[in-house]
């Protein structure tokens, strides 16, 4: 049984009334009540607030402790600016990739493809997006200010206004870009500029520090300056985005929905392979074709290593990320010298992960291993050559800022990092049917925990080794 929607034959229905009809009809078949939804939202907010506040407190306490205060305040300030630029660049890229306006595949197929007014259909989610960006950006700015030790009300207010304003400008501008594909090129350039600017600032501070040159603090408070500039810009951007809503096409809504679905799956099942698989597929699709080359017939394992090297050369973004992590390592060594050892291990693991794509591919696909033939161990070892070499290079170039001499501990750390990369790259496929364990975040499958900690467990042990032995 369905409810009739009062429409004139041949006329175009109002988006609000159609949405209401859809909501009422869907609600009739649902078993979950509004109370259930509010309960879930409450639990989510409670845990986010609790763990978020605990994280902020820990960071604040650490930065205020004697070991956290060893770096020069001006260096740390500019590294903060570099980090903010990098976060802004990554956030802008994420907004572009996701949409930011997204419509689920079902609504795309059954509603968005109809003549229903596009602005009317998208308006509620646009309003929700802007409100979420303003609130989320403000909270992020406030949390960053609290974590870095700000205590005065004007400083906290300035950071909140700057965060809220910048987030609103970013989201509204991304909607404008979504509605005008001609601007996509310039939008792509912006995130590269932001990331590049962050890298340049960090590199300049590292070079100045290593050269013994002091870096001055800025004369004006940047948070308030940024906030005051961002508020009027946010108003203009939101108005422009509202005007752009009718021009947001189905292609951009579909592309974003794919990413949003993958991200939701990754978050719900704590399985990042949903998202990384899609990102990898898109990365290679954007490349399209390559020049096929003949392998040098130097034996089975060497051929596999050649394939691994070609993969890296064909998409050098892994090397760019590797270099960015190296710069981060130097920045940590300058700003927080007492944490340099732990950062060396942790960032080294992240860096080697960027070059372990082949290991992950053979690790998660039994079919691929069967088609390549030979033993699994031989395949894994062949795909571990490039990651292992990258670990050696990593420890060689980061050692000068961590320890004055080379010792046995460095060999242990390098071997351990390779072992961690091996464990992370050879994770078996996730199984959800096994035993579950009751945690503060609800019932979680044991296999899921095993999956998440496989690799990072070795890194945790190595950080302890480094702390007590390094």
């Amino acid at each position, binding site marked *: 049984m369905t409810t009739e929607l009062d429409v004139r034959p041949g006329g*175009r229905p109002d988006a609000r009334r159609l949405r209401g009809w859809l909501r009422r*009809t869907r609600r009739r078949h649902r078993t979950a009540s509004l109370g259930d939804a509010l309960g879930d939202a409450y639990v989510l907010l409670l845990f986010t607030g609790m763990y978020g506040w605990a994280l902020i407190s820990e960071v604040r306490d650490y930065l205020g402790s004697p070991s956290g205060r060893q770096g020069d305040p001006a260096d740390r300030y500019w590294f903060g600016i570099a980090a903010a630029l990098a976060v802004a660049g990554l956030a802008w890229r994420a907004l572009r990739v996701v949409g930011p306006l997204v419509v689920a*595949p079902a609504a*795309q197929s*059954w509603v968005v*493809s*109809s*003549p229903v007014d596009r602005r009317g259909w998208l308006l509620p989610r646009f309003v929700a997006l802007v409100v979420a960006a303003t609130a989320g950006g403000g909270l992020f700015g406030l949390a960053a200010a609290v974590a870095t030790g700000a205590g005065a009300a004007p400083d906290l207010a300035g950071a909140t206004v700057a965060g809220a304003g910048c987030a609103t400008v970013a989201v509204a501008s991304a909607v404008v870009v979504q509605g005008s594909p001609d601007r996509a090129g310039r939008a792509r350039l912006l995130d590269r500029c932001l990331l590049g600017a962050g890298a340049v600032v960090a590199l300049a501070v590292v070079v100045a520090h290593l050269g013994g040159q002091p870096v001055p603090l800025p004369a004006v408070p940047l948070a308030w300056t940024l906030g005051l500039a961002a508020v009027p810009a946010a108003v203009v951007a939101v108005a422009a985005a509202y005007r752009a809503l009718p021009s947001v096409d189905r292609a951009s809504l*579909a592309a974003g929905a794919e990413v949003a679905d993958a991200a939701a799956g990754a978050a719900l099942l704590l399985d990042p392979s949903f998202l990384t698989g899609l990102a990898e597929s898109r990365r290679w699709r954007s490349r399209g074709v390559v020049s096929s080359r003949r392998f040098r017939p130097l034996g089975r394992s060497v051929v596999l290593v050649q394939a691994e090297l070609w993969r890296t050369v064909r998409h050098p973004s892994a090397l760019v990320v590797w270099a960015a992590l190296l710069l981060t390592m130097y920045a940590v060594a300058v700003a927080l010298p007492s944490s340099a050892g732990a950062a060396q291990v942790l960032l080294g693991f992240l860096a080697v992960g960027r070059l372990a794509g082949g290991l992950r591919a053979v690790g998660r696909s039994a079919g691929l291993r069967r088609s390549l033939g030979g033993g699994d161990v031989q395949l894994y070892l062949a795909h571990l050559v490039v990651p292992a070499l990258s670990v050696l290079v990593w420890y060689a170039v980061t050692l000068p800022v961590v320890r004055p001499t080379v010792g046995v501990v460095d060999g242990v750390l390098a071997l351990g990092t390779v072992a961690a990369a091996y464990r992370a790259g050879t994770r078996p496929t996730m199984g959800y049917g096994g035993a579950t364990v009751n945690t503060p975040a609800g019932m979680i499958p044991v296999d899921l925990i095993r999956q998440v900690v496989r690799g990072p467990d070795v890194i945790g042990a190595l950080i302890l080794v480094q702390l007590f032995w390094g």
Partner: protein
Amino acid sequence: MRGLTRRFGKLAVLEDVSFGLPEGRLAVVVGPNGSGKTTLLRCVVGADRPDEGEVLVRGRRCYETDPETRALLAAALDDIGFFPDLSVAEHLELVAYAHGGAGATVAEVIAELGLERARDQLPATLSSGQRRRLALASCFVRPRRLLVLDEPEQRLDARGREWLADRLLREKAEGTAVLMATHDAELAAAVADDRIEIGAAA
């Protein structure tokens, strides 16, 4: 369609594709696997953006963001999504309402597509063939001047294919232009007026 080009990186899937399709005629897009048939149809309906070229309807460039374009164009591609909590009949009523209709043709289309027993079923309980029929049904409960179908014969049984051929002939007779990708030579021979060959091996 004029000069349509779609590239993925350096790979040109479609290169300068142009053709015309008068009202009341049916054109089949043919080509080997990977020749870009689905990409072509996705560009026509606006589910994908071409890198170059344009789609013209009655001599006017059409944009997916224009409600008039969406009112003219009905499509059943392979990427259709379903609301998990709406029944078969409710999906079709939704499409009818969204196009300004009152859902009067829904029962008739459900009967024509043999979905009577499934009319109150939720999508998760439908077979792949029933889902395909539902996707096709969504094109027939609303007004249309251009019908775009991607391998509509897929997952249909022998009777379903007979019905499809008959329905496409009726669509043509009513003045609807039909653009269809198919690998079914028998269906193409029965209904096609024009062939659009794409891909190197075509």
